[in-house]
């Protein structure tokens, strides 16, 4: 997300942009929602983001006065660049979050979400009478749907409730082993959508559901699938957030690739690493290709993305340019037990998992601009600011890198 936003922003600023990508990372596993910031009192995005920006070390703290305009710009960039996803939710930082049903039957705040997901905003559903059908297609969903329905009933009460809608599309014994991505691929096959609609019609009638929340609407065209289902069933249809391996995450990754292509960003599959001259080189198999760039943006992610690695001796390492990495002010994660780094409980705040490269107010460390999770200092799990933080910092880093590249190009021109 950060790398794509940086590349798109740089391209829009006129820079000739090359994106080096090793492999899909955390974005491809994300839920389908874009979380910029939230607060327990449901404050508007801008207010929630300012509160995060007051936390030392948080990337929002580096943006200063640029924070809110950058959020506005990031929302706009995402909406413009990913038209196929029909993103819905906030239009500016003055808006409030959507509240979306999670795979555990709880609610999660997000500023933006893919259209069919955003339509299931619990804030809106809870204001009118209704019976949300949590659809179970196959596999573990059949068991999980009951927990989700129970949780959503509590959240939608007193006007609305939730029930399980067990579709009978997958009736073979081996269907029980299907995962959500496998079902999504299956639903993309010709004719399967119509069969699903038929099955849902029967099941929704039995459960007296007035709206349906599906685990997936397929990978390829959820917007079209939703429209077709709503027409045929006469019911509102929503798609659930995805847990890894997440269909909305895979879809987002695909949409970003298309956006980059459309914007004219060149994308190279390979491993970026530092070259001796402060530049980078791209390693692909046995080939090594040096890159001359007016500016370099590092958007390589944290542990999951591979941008930060902790060696077996506990030393933290930034994997591309070997920039200094810190977690809670330390450069190693060794010598545990250390509650400064990892809380005793899984749900605690783990400074060790917020490791990253420290950047200046220009989002720079050394000669590189930084964005996204490689920056560290933020905790998507407890701050409801994950993908959104990556988008905002990506946009800012991309714009600033483009400016620097422009200056470099101008001075080179002048020297000639």
């Amino acid at each position, binding site marked *: 997300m950060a790398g794509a936003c940086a590349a798109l922003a740089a391209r829009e600023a006129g820079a000739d942009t090359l994106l080096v990508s090793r492999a899909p990372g*955390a974005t491809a*596993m*994300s*839920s389908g929602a874009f*979380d910029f910031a939230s607060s*327990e009192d*449901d404050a508007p995005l801008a207010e929630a983001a300012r509160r995060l920006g007051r936390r030392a070390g948080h990337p929002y703290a580096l943006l200063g006065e640029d924070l809110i305009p950058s959020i506005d710009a990031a929302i706009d960039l995402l909406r413009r660049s990913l038209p196929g996803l029909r993103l819905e939710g906030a239009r500016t930082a003055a808006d*409030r979050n959507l*509240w979306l049903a*999670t*795979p*555990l039957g*709880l*609610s*999660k*705040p997000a500023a933006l979400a893919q259209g069919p997901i955003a339509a299931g905003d*619990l*804030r809106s559903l*809870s204001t009118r009478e209704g019976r949300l059908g949590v659809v*179970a297609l196959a*596999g*573990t969903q059949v*068991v*999980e749907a*009951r*927990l989700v329905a129970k*949780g959503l009933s*509590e*959240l939608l009460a007193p006007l609305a409730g939730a029930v399980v809608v067990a579709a009978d599309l997958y009736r073979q*014994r081996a269907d*029980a*082993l299907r995962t959500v991505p496998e079902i999504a691929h299956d639903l993309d096959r010709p004719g399967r959508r119509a069969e699903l609609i038929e099955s849902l019609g029967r099941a929704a009638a039995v459960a007296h559901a007035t709206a349906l929340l599906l685990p997936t609407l397929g990978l390829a065209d959820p917007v079209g699938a939703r429209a077709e289902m709503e027409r045929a069933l006469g019911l509102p249809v929503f798609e659930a*957030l*995805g*847990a*890894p391996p*997440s269909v909305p995450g895979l879809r987002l990754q695909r949409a970003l690739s298309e956006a980059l292509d459309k914007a004219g960003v060149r994308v190279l599959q390979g491993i970026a690493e530092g070259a001796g001259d402060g530049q980078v080189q791209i390693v692909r198999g046995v080939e090594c290709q040096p890159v001359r760039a007016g500016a370099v943006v590092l958007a390589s992610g944290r*542990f*999951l993305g591979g941008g930060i*690695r*902790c*060696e*077996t001796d*506990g030393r933290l390492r930034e994997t591309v340019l070997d920039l200094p990495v810190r977690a809670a002010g330390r450069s190693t*994660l*060794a*010598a*545990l*037990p250390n509650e400064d780094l*990892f809380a*005793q*409980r*899984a*749900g605690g705040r783990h400074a*060790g*998992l917020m490791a990253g490269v420290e950047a200046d107010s220009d989002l720079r460390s050394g000669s590189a601009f930084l964005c996204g999770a490689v920056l560290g200092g933020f905790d998507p*799990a*407890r701050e*409801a600011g*994950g993908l959104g933080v990556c988008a905002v910092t990506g946009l800012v880093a991309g714009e600033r890198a483009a400016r620097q590249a422009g200056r470099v190009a101008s001075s080179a021109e002048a020297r000639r």
Partner: protein
Amino acid sequence: MRDYDLLVIGGGVNGTGIARDAAMRGLKTLLVEKKDFAAGSSGANSGMIHGGIRYLMTDPQVTRLSCLDSGYIQKIAPHLLFRIPFLYPVQPSRPGQPSLKDRAFLYGADIYFEAYDRYQPLKNGKAHTRLTDEELHELEPGVVAGTMGAVTMDEYGIDPFRLCTLNARSAKAHGADVRNHTQVTRFVRDGAAVTGAELLDLRSGKADEVRARVVFNAGGPWAPRIAALAGVEVKIRPGKGVHVTLDRRLSNYGIICKAIDGRDVFVMPHEDSSIIGTTDDDFYGDPDDLFVTQDEVQYLLQAVEHTFPAVRKARVLRAWAGIRPTLYAYGPLEDALSRDHAIYDHEKDGAPGFFSIVGGKLASFRAMAEEAVDLVARRLGNSAACTTHRVPLPGGEAPAPPAETLSREHAVTAFAAARISYRHGAEAEEVLQLAEQEPELRAMACPCEGVAFAELAFSLRNEFAESLTDLRRRCRLAMGICQGARCAGPAAALMSEERLLSTQAALAEATALLDERWRGNRPVLSGEGLAQAELLQGTYFTTGALGSPRGKPWR
């Protein structure tokens, strides 16, 4: 108030073994455990029914008893044991330059293992073999080059959690009452005699009182505390043992390695992982609050790396610790302490009717239980003979159905069928029949360990499982490479159905399971382990919103 012949306190291998034996002899028995079966030392050992070759010099009776009982355990739970051929490579003290002392050591090792061969027939083990360096590397190329050769020996692995659960189930099948998550808060006395106990159900908060003609303290490292409740002293020398679990089977052999201080440390295959163990250090803390330090982990990894360098390429999944309730002795180093057991009749301490058992080994639990129940039976005038060495444990009655057959007939993956077949033996068919009756139970709750919902449901209905962490012990839920990232939510959903839990209670179960796993992950977080931790955080706490404030924030 209920009356029993025997109240057994402690659901480890000794407690469950005693309860089973007593129930099979017709004694009216109650087994209580404050946590869960094998939640303490019995679940924190190496998972081996080994013959105790280490004790051959100092405690040959321990070696003999362990080997003899290992043979019996193979007969009563054949599905649960798996053979582990061990290699003991001998490295020269200076690479490439074996000294006279080194040669003498190898010669000595050969003779020592030959002495152990005498006990191997008791446990269906093969006699040792001496291997050249070349032969060793043909068997296991991962061993460091330039050894002087190796010596082999045969041992057996086991799932200690299931062993304890099956003992408890067998006790119940023979008439015992079984209560886990139940703590003894006070003993009932009739004069000096211990005649019962006040029990507190830790899940419901309800207390009750039971009477028993004999009370047996099988609390392992908690035995001194339980004894203190009865006003008597039981002394042990608690020893902390740390193990490390790797994400893969490094080798199909167990390999004995030398640690930096000369101690023997092993790495061995266990299910689809490897276990490295163990440390042995005097422990002065609270057995309810064990943690592992990174030093302990590095000590074990270094030891294996010395002989098997590729260990550093494996991902360390977790580290875990247990406390050995070793017999008390002042003076010897921890490793030199006897692994023998002792049974105390506290009548001489002024508490007639109260007994304790401490020490011993997993491998000889059945024989120790037999000895303990012999004593109780004599006291109670029961003359029935012990039959625990002949009567199979649940699932051991017949050969386990082949995994291929289970997979084909029940439409589960071959991997899941193999794991279910191992864990449940002859009962595997019954487990998977649940999926025929309730089709949604065929789905995989824990793909890493091949745990179907049907298995979880079977365990919840038949094996005293009251929480997800209980299911973890019985079915290996969340014990695979993702450490709960994929299964905690789905399993909580099933738990909610089976136990009619509220959303909040079901998610508290998921949280407890993730916390338990995290406790073992924390000391080893590095490399890909941190990526896995980040993914788990994303799944449950970012996308799932677990732990976020409840209610409707939008109001």
